């Protein structure tokens, strides 16, 4: 089959969106990356796994690309003769650098052959708190809980020199109730010359942990990779598992999953819209939006048993159904919440002080966004009209009428505007889903084949979460075991863009810019 201008042996996986999978040789690995970039495709995620079996097998590097025609391509590169390096892709896709550094930390495989500008051999997730020769995803690593542990070490930040330049160090513990990470600002007066992030503080070994869970239970861990995106990530995991095991999903369950996903999107946007007002000293906005969000969460709890909908999306369907009263309640809430949001939307739009803080702040141009691989709502605020729900539609989005929210400003104001538009669009989607909800059961009973007799296989999931694209790649071993589960959060792409967005802004605008992206630390650090 032809991929861009290349002839690669790939085959279609049984996922509900178009996904091709194939194996490449070292020479094809870089050539494919280049050809896809030239055809305006992009790299979605990069990871590695240990496929060694005694004397046989190899380390395998994997990359998944999104092609412009609405197809994903997953390429595996087996590293023959026990090589521990592979051709790096950062010269073609600069935003892959941190993912490559994570592969080096977790699997001990190095990216090579890159220009000096894009080569970065500093550890990323490993802070020195476990020994440097311990690679948690290698077969010989085992699960390690006891023994001597070194303490975390310092990090060689890039220093900016010049008259009057000084550094402001922030974190990992921040002033508010947020996740931990370190920001190193180089400033002159109030102006930010450079921001360098150090993440990895909430790295909790999720990739290794997956390997000790039964595949049928992995959705619970996937749903806690980033708690605010639990529906999106659990759905992506279940999608991957259902593809690998060829499990059918009842139509009603698929539609309800979309309902939950849109409810998750609205809940997060409501919280962020309030917090963005608050970060511009408009506490009224926080109070009002958090009230709406609380109402929203309480109905989740009443109908689905969990305020954030954790563990509701399960393999083969969803846990729990809604009746006619539930549908009435959901529709009535859409009306009430929409009225409240429209009123607040007017207030935000007309508030001169707020708009003064939002407009031109933290700008990312379309060109920068393209070059840096910005995804999700932040991408759509910088003129990148991409959304998995539109470009790679899986049921039920194939049957739903959907309008993409897109702005070109690229500033905080644009990210606020996209959030408002997406809330209204999600409300519209929820109404469509509830009106046309298919009848029937919501969970397929697992077929008679016992779980621990299941064959191995591979599958993938691809979901537009509220923050952006969530990709899950799942490699199963026979007998209900996970050989490798890679959950990719869009924050991997978007964190480095935040470093660019803040350049030239003043330090007090950083919280506002940061919140306008609201990236996940946990989803990134895993």
């Amino acid at each position: 089959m032809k991929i861009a201008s290349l002839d690669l042996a790939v085959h279609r996986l049984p996922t509900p969106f178009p996904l091709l999978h194939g194996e490449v040789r070292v020479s094809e690995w870089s050539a494919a990356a280049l050809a896809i970039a030239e055809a305006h495709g992009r790299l979605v995620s990069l990871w590695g796994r240990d496929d060694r079996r005694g004397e046989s097998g190899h380390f395998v590097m994997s990359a998944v690309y999104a092609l412009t025609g609405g197809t994903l391509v997953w390429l595996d590169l087996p590293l023959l003769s026990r090589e521990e390096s592979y051709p790096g892709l950062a010269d073609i896709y600069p935003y892959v650098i941190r993912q490559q550094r994570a592969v080096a930390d977790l699997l001990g495989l190095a990216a090579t052959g890159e220009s000096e500008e894009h080569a970065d051999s500093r550890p990323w997730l490993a802070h020195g708190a476990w020994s440097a020769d311990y690679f948690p995803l290698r077969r010989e690593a085992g699960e390690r809980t006891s023994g001597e542990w070194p303490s975390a070490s310092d990090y060689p930040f890039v220093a900016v020199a010049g008259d009057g330049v000084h550094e402001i160090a922030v974190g990992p513990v921040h002033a508010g109730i947020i996740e931990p990470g370190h920001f190193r600002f180089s400033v002159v007066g109030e102006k930010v010359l450079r921001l360098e992030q150090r993440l990895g503080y909430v790295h909790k070994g999720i990739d290794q942990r997956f390997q000790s869970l039964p595949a049928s239970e992995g959705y619970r861990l996937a749903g806690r990779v980033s708690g605010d995106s639990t529906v999106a990530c659990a759905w992506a995991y279940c999608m991957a598992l259902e593809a690998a095991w060829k499990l059918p999903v009842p139509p009603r369950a698929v539609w309800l999953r979309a309902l939950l996903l849109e409810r998750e999107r609205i809940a997060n946007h409501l919280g962020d819209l309030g917090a963005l007002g608050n970060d511009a000293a408009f506490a009224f906005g926080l109070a009002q939006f958090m009230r709406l969000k609380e109402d929203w969460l309480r109905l989740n709890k009443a109908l689905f048993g969990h305020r954030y909908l954790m563990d509701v999306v399960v393999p083969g369907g969803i846990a729990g159904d809604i009746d006619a009263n539930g549908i009435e309640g959901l529709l009535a809430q859409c009306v009430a919440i929409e009225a409240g949001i429209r009123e607040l939307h007017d207030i935000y739009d007309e508030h001169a002080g707020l708009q003064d803080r939002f407009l031109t702040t933290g700008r990312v141009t379309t060109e920068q966004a393209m070059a840096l691989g910005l995804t999700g709502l932040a991408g759509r605020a910088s003129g990148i009209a991409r959304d998995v729900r539109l470009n790679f539609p899986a049921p039920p989005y194939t049957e739903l009428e959907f309008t993409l929210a897109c702005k070109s400003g690229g500033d905080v104001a644009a990210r606020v505007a996209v959030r408002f538009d997406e809330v209204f669009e999600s409300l519209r989607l929820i109404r469509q889903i509830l009106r046309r909800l298919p009848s029937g059961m919501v969970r397929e009973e697992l077929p008679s084949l016992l779980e621990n007799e299941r064959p191995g296989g591979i599958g993938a999931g691809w979901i537009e979460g509220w923050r952006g694209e969530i990709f899950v790649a799942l490699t199963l071993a026979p007998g209900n075991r996970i050989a490798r589960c890679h959950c990719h959060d869009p924050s991997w792409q978007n964190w480095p863009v935040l470093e660019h967005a803040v350049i030239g802004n003043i330090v007090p605008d950083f919280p506002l810019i940061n919140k306008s992206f609201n990236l996940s630390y946990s989803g990134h650090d895993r």
Partner: protein
Amino acid sequence: MWKILGRIAKTGIATEAPPAAAAQKVGAGETASVPRLHQEILDILGRALTIRAVDAGSCNGCELELNALNNIYYNLEGLGIKFVASPRHADLLLVSGPVTRNMVLAVQQTYAAMPAPKLVVALGACAIDGGIFGANYATLGGLAPVLPVDHVIPGCPPEPVDILAGILDVVRRRLPPESVPHV
């Protein structure tokens, strides 16, 4: 401006009428509503309680609920309970997450910076025993190996009213028995 004032007037004081959903079981079959928890905290503390929250590896679910606890339904600051930025202003350290090795130093330093007497609460399933993440090369599997834990608040994540009840519990347990009011 008129729209803002109109919205404020229309919203009213949402704290006064907590929805039935906020009522829940506390202890042995005892039902506590939000307003009663408020009164107990006031009776027991008689002053402000300041909390420093530290995420030591949470999935951010606990942080979502901590932020929700600050919404107008729970009126936390109205009770004299406040989240503070500096550990030097904090009476209580609230830690979420399975405690990653990368965060151990930050957690220890935060605790060290607090003035005595200091209370430590493990928030959520992960801070109690590692939760779904467990203990491995990257996490300690809970807060107990690092700090003396006074109290735990279970849940994944614990809901705002559970967090409120947990805070009340820890304060009550720390007081001499005769000063605890009969409820």
